[in-house]
């Protein structure tokens, strides 16, 4: 099938994502960047379920799903096979954060250590959304999920996000980047760069989930931008393990971002929990330092 000349879209309408779905937008933007000569390997997850109820597939490029945790291994096999056949399709994994940060990390570690020429893209909606919003290793500090509920003795998820970009960079990945559906051009540019970089590359896309995080689907991009603006999400690039570029922002405090989502609502009821908000602010501050995202005032 050739590229639709007018739109070059490889993700079709009719899929069953929630209105305003961040991952659906990510799927669309990723496939625009990867183009027709790409084989997509998917993990089990929300995106897999909303896009491929038999016989309705939303994917116009070759696509394969096997299990929750084995996308990186399946991709290894696809890559080995097409290499052996002398074919030139790009092999791109698209998997959720649960499949990536938690259950699939063994397969990912193996695939990255072996150096397969694949691009692994994690759509990070910061919890297990397919099964009903349970915490994952990507869930941010203090977010309330169904397995890390805020309660009388808890302020929600008690651990910060796992630093997966650093872990995969430490595997010797030539190109690791983070991006967001709130920055579509950045997302597509990074995907393009990754698929054209030899070796195992990793991209983590921030994909706000209106249902899981508790906000109106019209605000999916807005929430993404707020995460960038407060520093709880940073867009950066790592080449051969070094951070080489990051998206600069004039940072704002984290409160507005937290207030915008039900998963953080407990931090403001009955009155703002200053101590916890300060801890989250500290996470943003550390991100800002680590990734160099602050716009420095001109001297």
């Amino acid at each position, binding site marked *: 099938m050739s590229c639709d000349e007018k739109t070059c879209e490889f993700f079709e*309408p*009719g*899929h069953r994502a929630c*209105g*305003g779905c961040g991952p659906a937008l990510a799927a669309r933007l990723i496939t625009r960047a990867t183009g027709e000569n790409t084989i997509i390997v998917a993990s089990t997850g929300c995106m897999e379920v909303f*896009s491929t109820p038999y016989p309705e597939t939303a994917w116009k490029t070759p696509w394969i799903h096997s299990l929750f945790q084995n996308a990186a291994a399946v991709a290894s096999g696809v890559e080995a096979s097409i290499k052996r056949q002398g074919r030139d399709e790009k092999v791109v994994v698209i998997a959720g954060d649960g499949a990536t940060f938690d259950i699939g990390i063994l397969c990912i570690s193996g695939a990255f250590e072996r150096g397969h020429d694949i691009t692994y893209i994690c759509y990070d909606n910061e919890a297990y959304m397919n099964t009903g919003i349970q915490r994952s290793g990507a869930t941010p500090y203090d977010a309330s999920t169904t397995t890390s509920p805020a309660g009388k003795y808890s302020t929600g998820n008690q651990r910060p996000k796992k630093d997966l970009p650093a872990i995969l960079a430490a595997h010797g990945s030539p190109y690791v980047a983070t991006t967001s*559906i709130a920055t579509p051009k950045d997302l597509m540019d990074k995907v393009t760069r990754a698929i054209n970089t030899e070796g195992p590359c990793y991209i983590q896309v921030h994909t706000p989930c209106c249902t899981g995080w508790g906000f109106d689907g*019209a605000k999916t991009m807005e929430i993404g931008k707020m995460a960038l603006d407060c520093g709880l999400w940073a867009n950066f690039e790592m080449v051969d393990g070094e951070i080489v570029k990051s998206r600069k922002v004039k940072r704002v405090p984290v409160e507005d971002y937290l207030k915008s989502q039900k998963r953080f609502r407990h931090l403001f009821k009955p009155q703002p929990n200053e101590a916890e908000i300060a801890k989250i602010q500290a996470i943003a501050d550390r991100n800002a330092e680590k990734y160099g995202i602050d716009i420095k005032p001109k001297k």
Partner: protein
Amino acid sequence: MALNVGCAAAPGKARDNKTGSWRVFKPEFDLEKCNKCGTCIMICPEVCIEEDEEGYPKVDYDFCKGCGLCANECPKDAIEMKQEEK
């Protein structure tokens, strides 16, 4: 329809699922305000807005779920979400 071996399928059937019926609010476009920036086209998670012959956005309401993302992101406030008349 015979089953395809191994639960595989060729593209094309997703369009059988007309998600437009999910819609509660409908985006209405004020083309007077539109500057043809293409933001709404680019960011629609349903891939159901395309350019018309003059470069203006054209919604395929068969699939628009009425999420309002386009209206929220439109830099010219040219899109208004109106309650669907049923």
